[in-house]
């Protein structure tokens, strides 16, 4: 199989990640933060080590402000539901995933908040910035953007938006689903108050892992309530992160795998991202030469785009295109990619698109095979 679905989840995972998961089941098998025996405390130390690594990787000083979630969607919900306590107005981009759009839509329907969608302009960061700034109101509480579109790869000017949000005294959150692990993210330098990441995409950890990392822990409110291993005699949640938002037993095997994944990418984010971009560029160039292939994403240069190429063959829908590729051994994703806003923006809300997304293990040989398979499919 040719796996080109890394924007959904990276596969295969590095050997170090697989080993870390196996080892966790052997050596870190007790519940952290619950008991006093050696195995429980050793497991808690491993969990803390993972928080330290995340804090280091994303430029925050306090490891306890790196909170584990089940995925990036839960991390995003944690931020949005917390800031919604302040009510007011939110701004998002027109490329956001449903994990951002749907919670806000729900909060608006409940009459709690209002939100606006800012138009983005691929390759024009200043124009994009102005588009956001025009929407800022006196009651704007939060700007949240994706680091890169999961449909078209388009990167947003995160650092510029962060600086602007800071100047306007508006909180700034980033959905790092498509950039964590293949681009250096520095929350301090980029003025990011809340960073939401999946553990299982560019960070190469197992599925079922995610994190919310913050510089503003005092603003985060739990969305799940229950046992945390502390303040056991009180009916209220503990006051401090991370326990405040981590009710229930943690996914320790996933967390151990995530630690190994973060160690694998640490310091190499740009190198990985640039290698992926080269392959994405090659695929884009070659697909653009094939009659009958219609490309919808722009040429994926590293500075402006995540390594994603979206297209359809002939009059086929995105799903049909992906199905034909699947029959020929290619794993790509067809459809709407949980991104209504992005597809509406591109006018692809009826047919959808087939998305090819590149990851760390892909090679030029695989990219070449993919192109040949698409060319063959386009002939028929």
């Amino acid at each position, binding site marked *: 199989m040719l796996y080109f679905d890394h924007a959904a989840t990276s596969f295969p995972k590095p050997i170090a990640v697989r080993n870390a998961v196996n080892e966790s089941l052997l050596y870190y098998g007790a519940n952290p933060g619950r008991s006093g025996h050696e195995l429980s*405390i050793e497991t808690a*130390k491993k969990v803390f080590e993972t928080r330290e690594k995340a804090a280091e990787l994303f430029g925050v000083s*306090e490891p306890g402000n790196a909170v584990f979630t089940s995925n990036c969607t839960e991390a995003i919900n944690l931020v949005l539901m917390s800031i919604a306590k302040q009510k007011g107005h939110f701004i998002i981009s027109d490329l956001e995933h449903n994990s951002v759009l749907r919670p806000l839509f729900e909060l608006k329907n409940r009459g709690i908040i209002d939100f606006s969608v800012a138009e983005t302009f691929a390759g024009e960061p200043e124009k994009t910035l102005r588009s956001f700034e025009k929407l800022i109101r006196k009651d704007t509480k939060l700007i949240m953007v994706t680091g890169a579109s999961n449909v078209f790869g388009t990167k947003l000017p995160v650092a510029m938006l962060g600086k602007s949000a800071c100047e306007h005294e508006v909180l700034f959150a980033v959905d790092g689903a498509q950039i964590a692990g293949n681009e250096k993210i520095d929350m301090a330098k980029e003025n990011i108050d809340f960073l939401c990441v999946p553990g299982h995409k560019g960070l190469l950890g197992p599925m079922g892992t995610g994190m919310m990392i913050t510089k503003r822990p005092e603003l985060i409110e739990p969305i799940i309530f229950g046992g945390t*291993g*502390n*303040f056991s005699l009180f009916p209220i949640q503990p006051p401090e992160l991370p326990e405040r938002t981590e009710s229930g037993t943690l996914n320790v095997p996933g967390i151990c795998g995530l630690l190994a994944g973060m160690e694998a990418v640490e310091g190499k984010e740009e190198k990985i991202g640039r290698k992926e971009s080269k392959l994405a560029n090659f695929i884009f160039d070659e697909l653009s030469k094939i009659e009958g292939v219609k490309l919808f994403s722009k040429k994926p240069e590293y500075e402006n785009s995540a390594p994603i190429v979206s297209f359809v063959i002939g009059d086929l829908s995105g799903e049909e295109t992906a199905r034909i590729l699947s029959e020929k051994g290619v794993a790509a994703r067809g459809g709407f990619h949980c991104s209504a806003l992005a597809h509406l923006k591109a006018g692809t809300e009826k047919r959808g698109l087939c998305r090819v997304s590149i990851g760390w293990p892909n090679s030029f040989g695989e990219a070449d095979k993919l192109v040949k398979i698409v060319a063959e499919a386009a002939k028929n």
Partner: protein
Amino acid sequence: MMKEYYFLLSSVTSAVKGEKILLKNGFRAHVLKDGSVNPYGCGYMIRASGEKEKMTELLKKGGIRINEIREAK
């Protein structure tokens, strides 16, 4: 003989973090849990030996909220 203290904390995260801070600074320290000693709802604490004031300062500087310090008997 150096005195030993219990630093009673509110979570395992604080305990693990605090232990690392103290070990890094040359103190003998380890995490343990005893609900009969630490009544603050989690039981986690650090047992450490050395100068109390210095250890307390290091823990507070590291952002650790200490509920109580008791001398270990």
